[in-house]
Structure formats: structure tokens, C-alpha cells
């Protein structure tokens, strides 16, 4: 079992010895059960850290912020940041390393093992609890979650409330770390692309109708993009103003900037946005499922990325985020790569 006290001790030591700038971990939220990102600078505050099945967030997204912040500072503190990562999240660190977006010495990785379970889907949990407010969530090592609500203990089979991505998990303990907390327990791996079967079985027209209905709901809040550790481009195709603009950019250049996507949230523009994003994540998405979790309109965005993960696997035998030394899918090729799509 991951011992929370060990995590706190480790975090405290790192901060006291000045080995890390700060620690990105999890703490209890102020508005419910689920834990939220915590940024701990002061060793005294390590008591705030939590680790339990409510720690669903992929914190690696904050490494992108850290890089930007550092770039703005005149004399940046070059020490690494400590970051708590689960198995899935660690694969995002691997991709960021592969792409040389971050360097290995920028991060001190506190890996936590999910020990054969995973994290809880808040919506599924809420449905099970029918209005009861959960106070605590634990795993009983017998494939059940034990939820404490108002001093009452409720047992729920893990399979029923696990996050969708955990049901298709491919790394239940971190693939890269400086410290590992908990046991290296292999997860009974389900079929990794099971969830896609239903959509894939639909006829082309029905798939179109499905996605049209889903994407028509999009309000373009860009939470899916903003929460994604891989969406780190300085300039995104959907932004109206280029961040490459500087005081020296000529007026003509600015005026001629191509607008690829309109701000109007209608079918065509929403499709462009989501499909561009999906394609840009091909061979990069590690299926942390954050894009889908944060969507206020419940658009099943994960399917798009999952499909491309499957394509990468089937066409190029490429597994995302396991080896930082391996070149990324889109920046490498092999002689035997299929090319029958070139006509």
C-alpha cells in the first residue's frame, strides 16, 4: 500500500533540503470529496498532501506552466519541481521528455503506484451515492472501494466506479520515477481498446450523426485543450491572436494572419477544433482522460484520442509514453511502416 506518511516524509525532506522548488501533489478540495492540485513550497505544509482513489487529476499539465513561468523570470530558479505522478501520468512525463519539452533534471518524480486499482470517476460515484456526500474513500484490496458518508461505510465494487481509462489501464505503476511509493503491482489488464468497439461498430453515417450530436454541444471553453499536458503549443490554431506577434511584427503580417477556425460554436467550427486537436495528439496522448473529465457538456472526447492511440498501435506498433529514449511516433519512421494510405 502507498503510505501517505511516506509521501509526506519524502516531500518534506525534498523541500527542507532545497532539492526541489516546490511539490505538485494532491490536497483535499474545499467543495467535495475529490482531491485537487496542491502546490507546496513550505515544508510545514506537506501535511496538506493526500493520496487516495480521488486523486484523478493528471498533474503533469502544470509542468507546462512551470516551463513558461521559468522562461519569464530573469534569474530563474533552476531546481527541479517535485511532482506526484500515477502510472498513466508518468507516461505524460515520458512524452514531454521525448519531445524535449522538458529535461529530465527539471522534474523530481514522486511515483505512486495505483496497486492494481485506479482512481474514481466522480460522476459514476455520485450516481451510486444518490445524493449522499462522500467524506472518505479507500480501497479494501478486494476490488472494492469503501466510501464513508456520514459515518456510514458503503462498499462499491471497483469496476463500477473506476474512471473509464482505469478500466483500460496500461501502466498501473509509474514507468519513470525518482522515488516509487507503493508496490509494483501489475494490473489485471483489460482489453485496451474495448470502449471503442461500440462506436467502431456503427455505420459511417451513424458515427457522423453521433459525433455531430456530441460536438454540437461544445461551447468552446477549451477546457479539454487547457487541461491537456500535450496541448502546450505557444500558438494554438483556434486562438484569434497569434502569440508569435511581437512589437516588431508588421501590420500587414498581422492583418494577413489566417483564421483557421471561427469563434462561432457551430458544427463545422467545432468539428475543425476537435479533429485538429485529436490529430495533433496522435501518438502523443497517453489516455489520462482529463479532457473528457473536465468537459462541462460531457462530450466523450476521450474516444477520439483513444481511436488514434489504437491506430498508432495497429499501424506502427507504437505504444505511447513508455520509453523516453525512443523517438516520438510523428518524428520517426521505419522502412516497414505502412504506406498504403498514400495514393
Amino acid at each position, binding site marked *: 500500500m502507498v503510505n501517505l506518511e511516506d509521501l509526506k516524509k519524502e516531500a518534506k525532506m525534498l523541500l527542507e533540503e532545497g532539492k526541489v522548488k516546490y511539490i505538485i501533489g494532491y490536497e483535499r*478540495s*474545499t*467543495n*467535495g470529496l*475529490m482531491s*485537487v*492540485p496542491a*502546490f507546496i513550497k513550505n515544508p510545514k505544509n506537506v501535511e496538506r498532501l493526500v493520496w487516495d482513489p480521488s486523486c484523478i*487529476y493528471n498533474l503533469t*499539465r*502544470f509542468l507546462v*506552466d512551470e516551463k513558461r*513561468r521559468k522562461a*519569464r523570470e530573469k534569474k530563474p530558479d533552476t531546481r527541479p519541481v517535485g511532482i506526484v505522478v500515477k502510472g498513466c501520468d508518468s507516461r505524460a512525463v515520458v512524452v514531454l521528455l521525448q519531445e524535449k519539452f522538458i529535461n529530465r533534471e527539471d522534474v523530481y518524480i514522486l511515483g505512486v503506484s495505483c496497486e492494481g486499482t485506479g482512481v474514481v470517476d466522480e*460522476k459514476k460515484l455520485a*450516481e451510486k451515492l444518490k445524493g449522499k*456526500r462522500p467524506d472518505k474513500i479507500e480501497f479494501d484490496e478486494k476490488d472494492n472501494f469503501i466510501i464513508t458518508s456520514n459515518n456510514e461505510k458503503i462498499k462499491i465494487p471497483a469496476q463500477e466506479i473506476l474512471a473509464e481509462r482505469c478500466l483500460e489501464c496500461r501502466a498501473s505503476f509509474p514507468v519513470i520515477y525518482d522515488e516509487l511509493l507503493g508496490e509494483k503491482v501489475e494490473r489485471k489488464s483489460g482489453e485496451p481498446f474495448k470502449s471503442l468497439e461500440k462506436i467502431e461498430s456503427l455505420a459511417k453515417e451513424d458515427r457522423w450523426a453521433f459525433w455531430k450530436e456530441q460536438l454540437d*454541444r461544445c*461551447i*468552446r*471553453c*477549451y*477546457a479539454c*485543450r*487547457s*487541461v491537456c499536458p500535450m496541448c502546450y503549443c505557444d500558438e494554438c490554431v483556434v*486562438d*484569434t*491572436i497569434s*502569440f508569435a*506577434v*511581437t*512589437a516588431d*511584427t508588421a501590420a500587414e503580417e*498581422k492583418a494577413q494572419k489566417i483564421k483557421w477556425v*471561427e*469563434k*462561432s*460554436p*457551430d458544427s463545422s467550427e467545432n468539428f475543425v477544433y476537435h479533429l485538429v486537436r485529436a490529430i495533433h495528439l496522435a501518438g502523443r496522448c497517453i489516455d489520462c482522460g*482529463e479532457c473528457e*473529465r*473536465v468537459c*462541462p*457538456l*460531457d462530450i466523450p472526447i476521450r474516444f477520439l484520442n483513444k481511436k488514434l492511440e489504437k491506430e498508432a498501435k495497429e499501424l506502427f506498433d507504437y505504444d505511447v509514453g513508455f520509453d523516453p529514449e525512443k523517438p516520438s511516433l510523428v518524428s520517426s519512421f521505419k522502412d516497414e511502416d505502412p504506406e498504403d494510405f498514400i495514393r
Partner: protein
Amino acid sequence: MEKILRKKSFPQWVKKLESYRIYAPTKNGDLWNYELINHSEDINLDYLNTVLSPKKIIFPQRETFLEFSTSNNGNPEIKEVLPEEDPSLVFGVRPCDAKALTLTDQVFGGDFDDLYYWRRRNQTVLVGLACPTPPSPNCFCLSVNGSPHSKEGLDILMSDLGDRYYVESLTEKGNKLLNLAKKLFEEPKAKDKKDLEKIQLASEKKIKRQIKETKKIPPKLKEMFDSPFWDEEAMSCIRCGICTYLCPTCHCFDISDEVLSSSPLEGKRVRTWDTCQFPDFTMHSSGHNPRPDKASRLRQRILHKFQYFVERYKNYQCTGCGRCISKCPVGIDIIEVLNKVRGYGT
């Protein structure tokens, strides 16, 4: 005008209102949203709260201002496009969301009337539904001059008394709706009034979350513009637009030209929602951005709602619906932020 409507008579009343475009909370998957209703029996008022507030009906995320084109002889043609819709009726409006519209009225009214907004606003009838229990665990209307049975901004307020609704008509628009089905409504008896009072009192007690001493916050914020507090609070912000797009009071927009064809020229000038939380919201064409980081953007959201709006309109630009808290991807909690502001540095 105060009346009683039996719940079983509700569909009959809706049938009498067929000349209106009727919006009501509709469930799609796990989500409730206001959608146009085709059949009176589709209306289900057993909802908690919708993801998007009725703001989206009166101030849609996208609307066309004008259409432009080049005519056959090469001259430019511009056509104003004003909203031309039948009168609308929204059922099941929560008091916080109705109050929010009264705040937006001040922004789009006053010295200059925004025609597009007012066309829709004036022809929309808002039928409210009081909240006997908080629709969200993050409701805090009582902390921002609201209440679960507030009438502000509504044409009618319905309160659920079990087998019947206590229906209070508050405006001419509201009276008209009741008069279309006079026979269905009964005069309230003393017991109805007593029940209503009881429910209202109980509903206020059920709201658990609160900003303490909200009044002290605006002057406090005035001193905190340069505080490192914002850096700390914004650490987890991911700069998405959820808090502002779902907010019933946020009303910022962008205007852009959408060109459908460049030769011959054809296009539209449209207004779309925009948000202070996007980095390009304040981006100057020089490349300078006066709100360069997420700390300054979070500060803007809080200061606009609890300082600038208060200074200008003598009210908080927040009605306590709790959407920004419940839907924030990283758990940023405006109640918590404001409670910290109140005690900051003391």
C-alpha cells in the same frame, strides 16, 4: 397576482401557451440544459440546475449583427440583422439565474441600449421555480443578496408545495400567461400561504455554503491589486473558459467578421462569447498583454464581480449559483477565495 396551480393541471396550462417558443430544462445524458420544447408533456421540473443558465437564450453564444456582400454592380451591401423570433417563455428559471439577468440588464442598458440583447430580453417571459433544496451543493445565493425564492428578474415565481404550485405573477407579462388559462388557477387559501412560508424558511436553512461578511470584501479587494495572493490562488488555474461561460452574469463578448466567400464577398459580422480567462482576451496588437499571466486573469474575474461591479452598480456581479465551483476542472472555489480575501493579511 397569487394563485394555486394543481400539478396535474400544469401540462394543460402549457398547452394554452403554444403561441410562445417554450424553453424548459431538458435532460440529455446526465446533464440538464434549457432546450426548446415541442410537447407540453416534455416539461420536467424535477431538475436540479442546468449546466448553462438561461443567459444563453437571451444572450446567445453567437449572434449575427449584420451581413455584408458585394452586389452585382460591385458596390458593398450591408444588411442589419436583428433578432426576429416569436415571444419566448422559459420555464424552471432558478432565482439566482433570473437575478443574474437583472445585472446584465444594467450592462446592456443604461446610457446605451444594446438592441440585440433587448429584443430578446423584452420578448422573453421568465417563469421561475423556487429552490426548496439547494440545486447544487455549492449554492450560496444568501451570501450575495439573493435567496432561493427571490423574485428579482422573474415574471412569475412558482413554488413547489408538493401536489400543487404556489404561483406568483410579478409582471404584466406574467399576468398574461395566467390569464390565458384562468380556469386552471385557484385562489390561494390561508393554508397554502402558510405552507409557502414554511418551505421558504426551510429552504434558506438548507444552504450550507456561505461567504462570510461579503460586505467587507469589496474594500478589501481594493487594497489587494498587487498582492502575491493572486499568484498563489491561480497556481492551479488552467486558463479555460468554464467559470465564465457557465456564469449567469458574465457577459463579455468579441465581435468578428466571418467571411463565407471572398469573391464575390459575402460574410457576416457576429458576436460571440469571450472570456477574461483566455490569454488572448487582452492581447494588444503590438504583442503586449497587460494581463500576461493567470494570476492577473483570476484577479480580474474576482475583482470584476466583487469590486468594479459593486463600485459601478452597487451590487455583486455574482448570484451564488455555484456553477464555477462545481465545474472548475481544478477545484478553484470562489467562496474559499473570497473568504481568504476577507481575512488576508490580518
